């Protein structure tokens, strides 16, 4: 069977753009909120645009929070984009403090404003600085260093080892992507970041293929 990635449809985010980007790199995708389909996925994309409290509420309402945590414990590939990445963490300070999925240690906080920095939104193309000594499996290419951001909250991982890139806004170096085992998070939108962004989905396609090859080998041995 052709490897497929499941895009979680919980009513938040521009799923169509992500699907278009996946089509472009030749990775088959399925947009769904169906629990059994999601449970049987080898890889999922958790998208998200909007507010953290609404998003986690919707995931819980659709009973998808437990499904995603279960996928994590079975070492499936999880890809969080923008708010989707923030949801992977333990808690967010957006609005009232709310609990996240808790797959990654850490919290989500607002950009601080002050006299010199009046904007609280980070919108536009920003450079990413790749954190050295990290295995980012080719997701982030040193030559492709600008990505498209649109957010006003950012993550603070409990474990700095998972940080794969940082970017700068309001004079602050914030975390723009993370990776821990099979969990990947990107604060920017790869589907809107031109060829550098599409490269990330190409890498996702490659790791899904690799993993499915390993699985077929295993099943043959059995």
């Amino acid at each position, binding site marked *: 069977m052709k490897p497929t990635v499941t895009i979680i449809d919980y009513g938040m985010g*521009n799923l*169509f*753009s992500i699907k*278009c*980007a996946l*089509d*472009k790199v030749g990775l088959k995708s399925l947009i769904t909120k169906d629990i059994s389909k999601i449970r049987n996925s080898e890889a999922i994309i958790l998208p998200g645009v*909007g507010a953290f409290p609404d998003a986690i509420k919707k995931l819980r309402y659709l009973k998808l929070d437990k499904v995603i945590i279960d996928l994590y414990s079975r070492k499936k590939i999880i890809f969080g984009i923008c708010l989707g990445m923030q949801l992977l963490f333990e808690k967010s300070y957006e609005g009232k403090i709310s609990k996240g999925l808790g797959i990654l240690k850490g919290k989500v906080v607002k950009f601080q404003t002050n006299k010199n920095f009046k*904007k609280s*939104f980070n*919108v*536009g*193309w920003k450079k990413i600085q790749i954190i050295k000594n990290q295995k980012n499996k080719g997701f982030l290419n040193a*030559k*492709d*260093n*600008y990505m*498209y951001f*649109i957010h*006003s909250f950012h993550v603070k991982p409990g474990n700095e080892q998972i940080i794969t890139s940082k970017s700068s806004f309001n004079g602050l170096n914030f975390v723009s992507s993370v990776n821990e085992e099979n969990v990947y998070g990107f604060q920017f939108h790869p*589907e*809107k*970041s*031109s*060829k*550098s*962004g*599409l490269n990330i989905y190409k890498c996702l396609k490659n790791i899904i293929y690799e993993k499915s090859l390993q699985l077929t080998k295993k099943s043959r041995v059995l």
Partner: protein
Amino acid sequence: MIRIIPKLDIKNENLVKGVNLEGLRVLGDPDYFAESYYESGADEIIYHDVVASLYERNIDLSLIEKASKKTFVPLIVGGGITNLSQVEKILKSGADRVFINTAGINNQKFIKKVISQFGASTVVVSIEVVKKKKNYFCRKDFGREETNLELIEWCKKLETMGVVELIVTSIDKDGTGEGFDLDIARQLNKHVKIDYILNGGFSKLEHFTDVLNICKPSGFAIGSALHYSILKHKIGSQKHDGNFEFLKKKTQFNNFKKISINDIKKFLIKKKNIKFRN
């Protein structure tokens, strides 16, 4: 970084371009142009249904979907947007931001509503102005309807409403290739703190330095210069559904020399040390 933003004016599924927002000529399939611009380094793309507002009809969502399949940079879509459900549909079709002009002038609360539902960064306010003596006045319905709303007064109002970015179009300069309206640049620089994209008049690289000596816009929107460059490239080589006989004639369109987004970026790096994404 300053964003280089091709602006595609759309009428009945076709890419069109006029002069002073009038005399719209059909240039071809917007899809084809959008894809070329994406491939050649556009930082963002604007889709503007230029008759939606005037005819009080909705933007064709299938056009936005088509563009999303071929372009992987942010897409700003506007024209005739009057309600929240329209905004939602446009965003679901692959647009990242919407722009609003007429409905915002008619009802300022509408802009606030869109901001509170979709976030300030999702909304761009488009302002299309005509110069009268020393001041600029906003027009509605793609330049068809005059108002008494003065440019800077409107910008300041929008700023207090939480708008984060504007597209300011000089109707006088639109499609002429005479260069951006530098007086608008001066006024915006003096009075406006939020980001603004400048639109209207570009044809030669020096037009950028003229602006950048005065102010620093967040982006430059470009129509004619890029569209005609693609058409000049295509003349005689391929069948094409657009009517571009006018480009062969010796007319004002000869203002437009062949230019690419890459030429623009190279020039700005060299002359103004502006950084761009790779």
